[in-house]
């Protein structure tokens, strides 16, 4: 890096504000400013130069404007009042002509000057104009900005024939819009099929057929030779001539043959450009660290992005660096594609054309208008191309991004997420067909109308933003596909692009895996040491990361790392479940679901004594006392005199059992005793998420062992162990792990699997998702095939659990702060 003077690392040493100049008043640049103003509103005096005479607008929505579905006013993102409200000096309609990097001064074509301490270049991209004779004629335009769109709208009102050169995303959207405005439109495409960079030939032909049915004409594989002018009058385009001599009439020609990063200014002022302006992971140009570049003009690790989500990700990173937080890093993005032509469902992501070493799964129904192709390599999904039914696009995209093994779901992969047991949106796949009042998110009761209104009113672009603002798709996530479709239709966002690595939370860029690894490798024993070692932006984290880090510490270094009750969610701090009215519920442990008259009597007495309003039998074969006041909790525990059921914790909950061979005439094994033994061996076990077990005494499976984290089923010759079942949001049948002979083996295998989950699972990841992520083969290799490893896991778990206190009775040892149960008094 070039020599950096002191003022660069600390631009605000003096009380005077530093100066930031933005060249390019578009979506990427202004989003960067928004992010910057959010975290450091007072740091800079900001000046913006924009070549267009408009405030920042949503360029993606030019297609719906052209199609007459939205107006220009509706797509403005930052009205002039926004700039004024943030004291931003805005120079509209002024193109920057030069930058003096030594004197740090920007000069516009009209002579306007602005000095900078830091400069942000977001000049976007330029359309490629084909260098054919006649390209300079009137009526020949590109499709890039409001002026082009307006010209197309005007032309549609006066002329008849339009020719769009380029059958890519932009060209098809332009053609569709012009057709809807009444023109006869022909799309000319040089390559053998439409959208060849986003679609394979089969999907492209379906798309072409569908567009032809709407009235578009196509000339495929034709090379444009010249644009022919009108014989007399003003020199306006009249026809397009191809290399084979054919001519077609054209009153309007739209060039949509591609875009290229606009690096003209950057190159002129000596910034290194390769494809785009070369930037590092903090979005600084590699030539001049005072100058940043974001958006379509920037090349990060040699890649330029042309869709909105990566650009916003870049903007966020750039803003943290401008704000001197400086630890944000951009690591590149995966992107996916959707066509914004109402009524046409199309999605593609990754490598969908296959190649060496890849396998394809294809579903083709040309009459029904559905085509899906999934490309798999080394048991991982690497590409997807969907036409006609795209509701699972986001799910495939997630699989692709996560790089998760799909071997276990391969047979169901093509049929989508709903076939894996996801519920919540009643199998609805087309958001466009839903009414405003229809519920999209069943968890949080959010309707289509609410989501669309929030997207429009608040200018939301990404799934995360919709989740934060409306809570839609924020709980179980099964409606994610629908929400993403709504985003696309309302905001035009390529919503699903996302950073390659998912950060644990907003306080850090580190992932769950990074944090775990650091704790293990550096033997970190406290939350503060993790925050210092891994790099946290916030002094004491947030409500998302602290519980996760606390769990990783105590599970990695049992008996050594300090448990921090203030970093646990209230339920684990109070050892009771908080209810909607602020009262608590108490669930005593009943080993294997068995109880006695004495226990029931004590419970009944407690209910009377503390006037507990509701007594409920739980699904886990225990009794739940609901509506206990916080100040009564200690006395209730004491009077009941039964161990904590940990019904409030990310820990072992219940071991549900059937009565088994002791009473049942069908029972083959003593499932109740097995259940009690398991529960006594595993209780007080904290885990990434709650853990439920069940033991059935015969394959009739009355204990419902098929939907538990560990389900044991007795058969005549022994026990079957099933793992990673789930009866919650995503009903998942447990997978068979192993068949065993003795009860001791059942304890060892079950314990070893749970310890593996404790060591490798991410906080709040249920065992079903953990096994889905690492694959059943991995679990089998560690638990079934590796006897020494299994014994070591089982021993580590026993070591962790030995002498662990019961938090309802041993307050000191369990680090229960008993002050929480008493209110302070105020002498009034």
């Amino acid at each position, binding site marked *: 890096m070039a020599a950096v003077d002191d003022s660069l690392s600390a631009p605000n040493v003096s009380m005077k504000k530093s100066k930031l100049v933005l060249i390019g008043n578009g979506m990427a640049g202004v989003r960067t400013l928004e992010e910057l103003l959010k975290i450091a509103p007072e740091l800079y005096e900001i000046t913006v130069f924009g070549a267009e005479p408009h405030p920042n607008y949503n360029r993606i929505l030019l297609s719906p404007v052209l199609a007459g579905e939205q107006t220009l006013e509706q797509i403005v993102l930052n009205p002039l009042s926004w700039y004024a409200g943030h004291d931003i000096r805005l120079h509209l309609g002024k193109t920057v002509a030069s930058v003096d990097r030594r004197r740090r001064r920007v000069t516009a074509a009209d002579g306007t000057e602005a000095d900078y301490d830091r400069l942000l270049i977001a000049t976007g991209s330029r359309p490629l104009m084909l260098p054919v004779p006649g390209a300079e004629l009137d009526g020949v335009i590109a499709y890039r900005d409001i002026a082009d769109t307006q010209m197309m709208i005007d032309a549609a009102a006066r002329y008849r024939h339009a020719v769009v050169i380029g059958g890519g995303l932009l060209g098809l959207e332009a053609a569709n819009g012009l057709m809807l405005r009444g023109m006869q439109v022909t799309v000319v495409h040089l390559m053998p099929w439409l959208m060849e960079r986003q679609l394979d030939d089969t999907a492209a032909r379906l798309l072409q057929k569908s567009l032809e049915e709407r009235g578009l004409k196509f000339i495929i594989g034709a090379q444009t030779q010249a644009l022919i002018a009108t014989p007399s009058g003003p020199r306006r385009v009249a026809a397009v001539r191809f290399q084979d001599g054919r001519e077609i009439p054209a009153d309007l020609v739209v060039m949509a043959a591609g875009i290229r990063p606009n690096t003209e200014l950057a190159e002129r002022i000596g910034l290194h450009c390769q494809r785009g302006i070369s930037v590092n992971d903090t979005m600084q140009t590699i030539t001049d660290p005072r100058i940043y570049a974001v958006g379509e003009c920037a090349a990060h690790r040699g890649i330029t992005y042309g869709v909105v989500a990566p650009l916003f990700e870049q903007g966020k990173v750039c803003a943290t660096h401008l704000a001197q937080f400086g630890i944000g890093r951009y690591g590149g993005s995966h992107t996916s594609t959707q066509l914004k032509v109402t009524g046409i469902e199309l999605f593609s992501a990754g490598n969908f054309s296959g190649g060496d070493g890849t396998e394809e799964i294809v579903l083709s129904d040309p009459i029904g208008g559905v085509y899906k192709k999934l490309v798999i390599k080394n048991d991982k999904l690497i590409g997807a191309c969907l036409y006609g039914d795209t509701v699972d696009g986001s799910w495939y995209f997630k699989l692709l991004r996560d790089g998760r093994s799909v071997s276990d779901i391969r047979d169901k992969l093509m049929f989508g997420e709903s076939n894996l047991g996801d519920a919540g949106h009643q199998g609805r796949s087309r958001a466009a067909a839903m009414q405003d009042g229809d519920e999209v998110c069943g968890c949080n009761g959010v309707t289509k109308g609410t989501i669309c209104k929030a997207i429009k009113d608040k200018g939301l672009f990404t799934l995360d933003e919709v989740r934060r603002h409306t809570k839609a798709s924020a709980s179980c996530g099964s409606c994610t596909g629908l929400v993403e479709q709504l985003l696309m239709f309302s905001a035009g966002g390529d919503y699903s692009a996302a950073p390659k690595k998912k950060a644990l939370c907003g306080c850090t860029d580190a992932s769950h895996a990074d944090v775990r690894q650091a704790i293990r490798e550096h033997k970190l024993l406290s939350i503060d040491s993790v925050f210092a070692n891994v790099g946290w932006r916030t002094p004491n984290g947030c409500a998302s990361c602290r519980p996760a880090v606390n769990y990783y510490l105590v599970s990695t270094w049992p008996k050594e790392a300090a448990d921090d009750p203030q970093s646990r969610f209230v339920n684990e701090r109070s050892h009771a479940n*908080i209810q909607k009215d602020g009262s608590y519920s108490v669930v005593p442990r009943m080993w294997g679901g068995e109880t006695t008259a004495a226990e029931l009597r004590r419970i009944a007495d407690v209910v009377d004594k503390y006037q507990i309003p509701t007594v409920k039998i739980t699904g886990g074969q225990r009794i739940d006392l609901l509506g206990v006041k916080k100040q009564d909790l200690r006395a209730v525990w004491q009077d009941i005199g039964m161990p904590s059921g940990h019904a409030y914790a990310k820990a072992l909950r219940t071991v549900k059992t059937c009565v088994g061979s002791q009473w049942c005439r069908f029972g083959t094994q003593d499932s109740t005793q097995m259940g009690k033994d398991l529960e006594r061996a595993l209780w007080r076990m904290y885990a990434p998420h709650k853990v439920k077990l069940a033991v059935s005494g015969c394959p009739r499976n009355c204990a419902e062992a098929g939907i538990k984290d560990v389900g044991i089923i007795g058969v005549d010759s022994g026990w079957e162990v099933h793992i990673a079942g789930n009866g919650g949001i995503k009903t998942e049948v447990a997978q068979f792990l192993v068949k065993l002979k003795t009860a001791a083996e059942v304890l060892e295998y079950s314990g070893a699997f749970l310890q593996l989950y404790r060591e490798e699972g991410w906080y709040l990841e249920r065992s079903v998702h953990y096994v889905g992520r690492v694959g059943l083969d991995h679990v089998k290799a560690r638990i079934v095939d590796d006897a020494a490893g299994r014994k070591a896991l089982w021993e580590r778990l026993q070591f962790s659990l030995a002498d662990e206190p019961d938090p309802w009775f041993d307050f000191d040892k369990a680090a229960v702060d008993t002050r929480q149960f008493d209110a*302070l008094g*105020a002498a009034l």
Partner: protein
Amino acid sequence: MNWTRICRIDDIPRLGSRRVARPGAPEVALFRSADDQVFALLDRCPHQGGPLSQGIVFGTRVACPLHNWTIALDSGQALEPDQGCTARFSVSLIDGEVFLSADELASRALA
């Protein structure tokens, strides 16, 4: 202002809170940040009335235990994009002793 002593700062856990009972009126939550600032808010989230005193404290914020709204301890304001505000009480911290205003306790947010 008419200050009334509530407790010592060490009676409140760091990054934690205590409840202050008010006869016949909703409780007040006292919060202590990592750097030993003390804040007082009505113990009620503006969203659905959750007890803020039971939330996780970080920086100068608390996450409500019911639906994870984040409330700023110094203003009582919900953080964007959520909207709402809970009543704030004045706190005086002198030599490690925490005082609240008796007038505010007796008059503010009684229902």
